[in-house]
């Protein structure tokens, strides 16, 4: 990242000259970007609320919980799971 020019914003986006003592206004690109981000965030929040509000791992649960590995028994004839079924406490 090269150093900025000596007075890169002698005339800022808002046209204010610092020598005149007027602070620059917020550039249009910041306002437009902020608006877009705000709309997207509100849309995402609305989707979460409409979807039931559950944003954690349990939203993928379909009756059994991810931590119920101790009850998992491989079907007869299949190789056992590499994880020890007696392990508890993860997740």
């Amino acid at each position, binding site marked *: 990242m090269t150093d900025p020019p000596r007075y890169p*914003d002698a005339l800022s986006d808002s046209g204010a000259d610092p020598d005149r003592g007027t602070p620059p206004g917020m550039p249009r690109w910041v306002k437009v970007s902020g608006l877009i981000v705000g709309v997207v965030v509100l849309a995402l929040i609305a989707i979460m609320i409409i979807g039931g509000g559950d944003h954690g791992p349990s939203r993928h649960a379909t009756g059994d919980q991810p931590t119920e590995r101790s009850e998992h028994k491989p079907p007869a004839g299949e190789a056992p799971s590499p994880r020890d079924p007696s392990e508890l406490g993860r997740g």
Partner: protein
Amino acid sequence: MRPGVRKFALATHLTVSVGWIGAVVAYLALGVAAVNSRDAQTVRGAWIAMELTGWYVIVPLALATLLTGLVMALGTKWGLLRYYWVLVAFVLTTLATAVLILHMPTVSSLADVARDADGARLESLGGDLLHPGVGLVVLLVVQVVNVYKPPGLTRYGWRKQGEQRRQQGGQRAAPMA
């Protein structure tokens, strides 16, 4: 910052930030595979790989990007709060890193489920596409902002610039006194 140190810091920042983008693209590919594949081993493998990639590649790259970005901002005349483009890049990078770290435990939980789940349960997991997809867009926006550096001084930057001008004006006047 001396020019040599600044170049090293810049090279490091570019490496980790672009690496972060690449790692997210790879992560998305795994998520797409998890969604589209009907093979249980592929889905399990994709989820396990997503967990490993997330914790051991993406999270370290994100933290390194944040740290090197801070070093670049504070160590050069751009500063962290003087220009809107730096401020916007910093805020977006911080948000992306925070969401990533908060989201990874969910990925770990789902990877744990995938390890032991059977066909129907495995299919119901789907893939992790929303968070990395939105994250990728955010990272690309930050990249564009960093390259184009759109103009705009903050009020703080404007005050600092005024102070520097007054200082430099005073230094120029001194030899003539």
